[in-house]
């Protein structure tokens, strides 16, 4: 057991503190602001109005939700539709959790796109499962990988092969690709392209054009 100070009580600091405390360490968290949460804090920004001032809810890791028992402490609300893309011509394209319903909405813009959307989602899901496995890994040191890290990388390699030829090539191609290029390979409707590509640029400095943003689309 050791005494550990965690600097910053944002969601990452708190997650670190949680696992350390659970492992029996004596943990002290230090937060500069009067509220905890960092970017993930909800605050009353005008009298009676509360909002998360910085962050939208991200893809909180399932393992973290489980380990902390968050399901009983927080009520997760999933709005539906979860995104509405607005066009200057007055039309709107709602994205609902139900892929079929979204495809139907897309059909009002393009039948081709409506047909391709379910395949696009299914492909991203498969690749997402693979990538999500990487998120639980500590990146190996590239200059002197430890044996354990090599083992983890080997497992990644095995799962990569299990993706199959088409998907593994997709992953290799899409990784460095611009989000705008990726969506234009799939869809013809500008509004749909922009809505899907915008998910590749949240919190990134680049516009949808330059490469390297495609992976965030998932």
């Amino acid at each position, binding site marked *: 057991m050791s005494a550990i100070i965690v600097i910053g009580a944002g969601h990452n600091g708190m997650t670190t503190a949680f696992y350390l405390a659970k492992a029996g360490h004596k943990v002290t968290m230090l937060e500069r602001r009067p509220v905890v949460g960092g970017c993930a804090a909800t605050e009353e920004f005008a009298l009676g109005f509360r909002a998360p001032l910085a962050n939208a809810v991200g893809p909180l890791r399932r393992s973290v939700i489980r380990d902390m028992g968050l399901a009983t402490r927080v009520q997760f609300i999933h709005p539906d539709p979860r995104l509405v893309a607005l066009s200057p011509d007055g039309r709107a394209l709602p994205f609902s959790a139900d892929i079929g319903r979204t495809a139907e909405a897309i059909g009002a813009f393009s039948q081709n796109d409506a047909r391709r959307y379910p395949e696009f989602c299914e492909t991203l899901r498969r690749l997402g499962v693979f990538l999500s496995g990487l998120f639980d890994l500590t990146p190996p040191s590239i200059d002197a990988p430890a044996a354990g890290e090599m083992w983890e990388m080997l497992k990644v390699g095995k799962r990569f092969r299990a993706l199959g030829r088409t998907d593994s090539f997709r992953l290799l191609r899409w990784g460095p*690709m611009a989000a705008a290029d990726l969506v234009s390979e799939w869809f013809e409707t500008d509004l749909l392209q922009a809505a899907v590509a915008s998910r590749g640029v949240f919190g990134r400095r680049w516009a949808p054009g330059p*490469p*390297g943003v495609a992976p965030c689309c998932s």
Partner: protein
Amino acid sequence: MNKYDVIVIGGGHNGLVNAAYLAKAGRKVLVLERRHVLGGAAVTEEIYPGFQYSVASYVVSLLRPEIIRELDLPRHGLEILPLDGTFTPMPSGDHLWRVNDHAKTRREIARHSKLDAEAYDEYGKAMMEMGRFVKPILTMTPPDPTSLEPRGLMNLLFLGRRFQALSDQDKYNQVQLMTMSAVDFLDQWFETDVLKATMSASGIIGTFLGVRSPGTAYVLLHHYMGEIDGAFRSWGLSRGGTGAISLAIADAAREAGAEIRTETAVSKIIVKDGAASGVVLANGDYITADVVSSSVDPNLTFLKMVGTEHLPSGFVDDVKRYKYRGSSGKVNLALDALPNFTAMPGAGPHLRGAISISPGVEYMERAYDEAKYGRYSRRPYIDMVIPSLTDPSVAPPGKHVMSCFVQYAPYNLKEGGTWDDHREAFGDTVINTIAEYAPNIKDIILHRQVLTPLDIERTFGLTEGNIFQGELTLEQLFFLRPAPGWAQYRTPVKSLYMCGSATHPGGGIMGAPGRNAAQKIIKDGRR
């Protein structure tokens, strides 16, 4: 009589290299070139009487030394003359002039920043290491990362081992190079704006990307790997213009027994039972061969000459997705005298190297901004060379030839009208830009040839005017070039091969695709 072992489509430098190696291996080879001259984009033409223009490609550095050696190109007339330095005039009247003489360049950079002068040494060493790491990859057939084929696995293992052998810092540099933007990468080393702008320019050449777009750092290295006489990063000119390189290779091919026909356009590749068995010419003639090796790009090879009915649909999708997006133009000038730069007046040695209009990073990025929305840059990046100063044979005595590579000129123009309507206005923009640095330029022009991306497509058969037969971006390199699963010079059509710049390791007067493909064809033939 009309039966060959191999027909090579396209008499550009890669097609000719391919033919030369195949002929040397005893194959009966026929090269078919659509134009009246050989060389493809590596061509010299007398467009204006007395002046020899290197119409498209204008400098050489990437030509593989093993090709020069194995084809004995100097004996066939190849002579590379050194091109010393890069001169960047600035609007302030100052300049940056880097030369091969290391001490001199250091002093020059120190004039702008002492820190940068020190970093320049470190940078040179680091890039040299990176280049050494990447070099063997150039002559390698890319492995298929999804297959368990032993040879491919050995290659992957070999790459892994080489990567492990790099120093820690070089490993991180390598990873950064593969993913960062040219400017972000250079920002880590330097503070002088004009230095970063000029260096970053080689990261965008032939791509539809800006100096701040991720992935451009790799292109930086691609151009850094230039190798003449074994020295990294030295650029040169070939005596007689760039076309002389192609003619030397053609001579080597003919000596080895290859037959070369010009003004012979191929319209179709004959496919029978899933295998290529020859070609149909534009005049309707048939020529049969056991193997067809195409040096033209995938759009022409597969969509025009083979036809989608002979190809798997997934492959057709990949070929259609392959990105060309030509982004550059070329202006060739016949000059009555030398341009006089305000930043360094007179006919000094600064005119003997490359002259770069790249005065700042923001200037470069603004040039890209316009192209993103379909306009050609109103103040473009220009790379100029005056070959007549080094090789007087290309112009009459006292007169000069000047090559201006211009970026950005987007193939898909959204200015109203086509490139045919904007050609001369584009040419004027280039001259006006140069005039801001060398005011006498307008008075000394005897003749001007303007090549828009549309002209490059029409003249050289380069789809969308892309000078590299497809962008050199990460998703189109190595085992993804030109299509996932088809990076080994073979195609879904049996006995049809690819040997042009659209295959690994890509464009530039390198010759590696032609040589690698020839080795593949020879090896497959032994089975």
